[in-house]
């Protein structure tokens, strides 16, 4: 086939017509290549579960014209993924699914030179509260009994949680400080391993997220004693909060999607719309209820303010911990 001028024009015209309807329907920015969907934790953890859940909702409803490519970059307690975002060559196509190491890792590892306040807020999918659990065989039924037991054992009471400086250790450190408790803290790789060792009575108490402990709770093995949420949780109406006990402390794991620094406003708006649809979907709303996540809807400015509050809080909590 000879490429004449007429043929070229015809081809050009037909290409334009073929692409017109799409361009007409989408208002503005559209991804031009597959979207890097980085997960701040290893395969199988809470953040991973949520990322893949979101991806499946996006795919099932055809919400993006280019696929989300989930990649686990959990190394260095999330440092790997923070650096990946900070140095992203194509910020418009780079997203991060976060947990609280988003705040703690840059504080604990200053050498990274990551300032999360330069990142682009996309959406907060929900926040995951923490609950204090013991095994039913321990005979402990209330938080007061728990405090008495820990004091009685004088440093021999064993609690398990995620790595030092991560969420679980922060919650336990605050609680221990507030009630003058001495516990033996055993760090684990992830919440699943922690729950398993409580079920096997290798450790005596945990502060698992409800999603991690729910199966054992429903089977009657775990007893919830105290919630670290702002208000009593719907799924556990009889469990008091630490706030009710007179300590102004609540702690949640954030389940958010964040864009790379330097993402254009158009791209950010596009992703907010896509994940907003995921958020409103029946599937996600069902997930929030079944996994006891709390909603926390914020716009861009509110999110930025929330971030800087969180950074301050974590800086204080971590410095109190190391004292």
């Amino acid at each position, binding site marked *: 086939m000879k490429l004449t001028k007429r043929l070229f024009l015809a081809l050009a015209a037909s290409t334009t017509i073929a692409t017109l309807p799409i361009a007409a329907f989408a208002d503005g920015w559209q991804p031009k290549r597959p979207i890097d969907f980085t997960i701040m934790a290893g395969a199988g953890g809470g953040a991973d579960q949520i990322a893949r*859940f979101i991806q499946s909702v996006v795919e099932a409803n055809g919400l993006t014209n280019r696929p989300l490519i989930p990649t686990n970059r959990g190394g260095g307690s999330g440092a790997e993924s923070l650096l990946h975002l900070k140095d992203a060559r194509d910020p418009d196509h780079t997203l991060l699914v976060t947990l609280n190491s988003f705040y703690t890792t840059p504080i604990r590892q200053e050498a990274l030179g990551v300032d999360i306040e330069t990142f682009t807020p996309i959406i907060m999918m929900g926040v995951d509260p923490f609950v204090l659990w013991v095994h039913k065989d321990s005979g402990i039924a209330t938080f007061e009994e728990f405090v008495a037991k820990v004091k009685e054992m004088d440093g021999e009471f064993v609690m398990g949680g995620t790595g030092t400086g991560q969420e679980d250790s922060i919650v336990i450190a605050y609680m221990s400080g507030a009630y003058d408790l001495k516990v033996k803290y*055993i760090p684990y790789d992830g919440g699943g391993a922690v729950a*398993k060792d409580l*079920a096997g009575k290798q450790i005596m108490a945990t502060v698992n997220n409800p999603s991690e402990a729910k199966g*054992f709770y429903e089977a009657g093995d775990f007893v919830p004693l105290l919630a670290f949420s702002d208000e009593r949780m719907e799924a556990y109406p009889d469990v008091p909060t630490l706030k009710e006990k007179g300590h102004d402390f609540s702690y949640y794991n954030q389940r958010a999607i964040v864009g790379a620094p330097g993402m254009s406003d158009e791209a950010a708006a596009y992703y907010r719309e896509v994940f907003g649809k995921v958020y409103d979907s029946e599937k996600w709303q069902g*997930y929030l209820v079944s996994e006891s996540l709390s909603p926390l809807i914020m716009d861009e400015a509110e999110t930025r303010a929330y971030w800087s509050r969180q950074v301050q809080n974590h800086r204080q909590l971590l410095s109190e911990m190391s004292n």
Partner: protein
Amino acid sequence: MEVISFLADGILLALEPVNFALIIIGVTVGLFIGAMPGLGSVNGVAILLPITFLVPPNSAIIFLAAIYYGAMYGGAISSVTLGIPGASTAVATTFDGRPLALQGRASLALVTAALASFVGGTVANVLFTLFAPVLASTALSFGPPEIFALMLLAFATFVGLGGDDIPKTVFSICLGLVLAAVGFDTISGEPRLVLFEIDGFMRGIGFIVLAIGVYGIGEMLWTIEQTRGEVTTTNPKMTVKGMASDAKEAMQRGWKGTWIGSLIGFFVGILPAAGATPGSLMSYGVAKMLSKTPEEYGNGSPDGVAAPEAANNSASTGSMLPMLTLGIPGSPTTAILLGGMVIWGLTPGPRLFLDETEFVWGLIGSFYISNIAALVINLAFIPLFVWMLRMPFTILAPLIFVLSIIGGFAASRSMHDLWLIVIFGMAAFFLRKFDYPLAPAVLAIVLGPIAEPTLRQSLLLSSGDPMIFFNRPIAGPITIIAIILILLPGIKLLRRKRAMAKN
């Protein structure tokens, strides 16, 4: 028998046209993903998870489990034909599978692997069906000290692996342990051994990177150097009759390894935190130890192929046990499957077995069907894989190189890992020239990340008292056996020296 009727219902469910078709597709996809060096069942299951949103949960988990099964069969294929373990679960398969292939007996190795996998899967399925609830509570009684004792045992069974040069073996193990320690330390919450301040080391050094470097690049350099390019390729012939006689030989010479692997694999597999890789390595070590002809191991013993292959299939079924009975992942792949269950609206946990009978037994039923499907499909593809070996080395070598690079990149999508693969490949070549055994280093990088945290957790539990490994009912005996095994070669050596001195 209630169990039998549940199982019958489950098998019927798995045989429904949609589910059966998904099993066939899943097993085939898994077989090829597993055969690709670098990619294993974790990648396959993670990539295909969102697709399962389109079918009911029963079919979805059956599909993903079929991929898992297929990948376990497939891992052996690249171990044998390319000499690169397709996944960490198939490392031990290279030890004897590769020598067999170099002797022109690739088809024997592949047939042995397929049959052993089948027996391993079947043994595990039966144990699973009959004893699931009892075994679940056993899994829970394994805390950090027990897991560490088990890892010590795994190391112990491998002390003999490096041959007679004990100092070099120890050096190799230490090298592996140091590489395993690179990255981030969960216990202290600090980065550690981030070499040259290169950010890529934050993630640590994965097994895949070391294995592809050592077995892919290193092995290729070695072959080129040894033969100076004049490689005489083996010319294996594939006929139905030949395969039948291979099958017969596999059964005669591989049955012992198969049984050892099936049982050890299952029991190690059901322990969360341990899983299929330690299971297959331990099975190899134990099979060698119990063998009347241990000198055959490493030089192409069918038992040496059968033991790890039976074990990794048996263990992958075993690792479903804590997932279904407790809602706890027994391996990285089952962790993703658990995520899937949440997506499909199920609550993993101890109630799952009681509340979702159809789902659970449909999955168990599908194990039986997938296992048979995987055997048939695998056997059907063996001629294709053997044919690959008939390619001239000048074509095969670049192909291995390309596959190594693609596989290494696909797993983590990072250039840093690719450079490491090349560096490890060259380092492996020189270490081999100086007669350092490399298998112990690979073993250490697999077991180190399990052994180190459990050791430290145990010592935190006991406030630093090492007696915790001896005075617990399960950990104690395991630790003592491990220590005896570690000391054994030394005692043997002393005796031999004394005998020589007398003469």
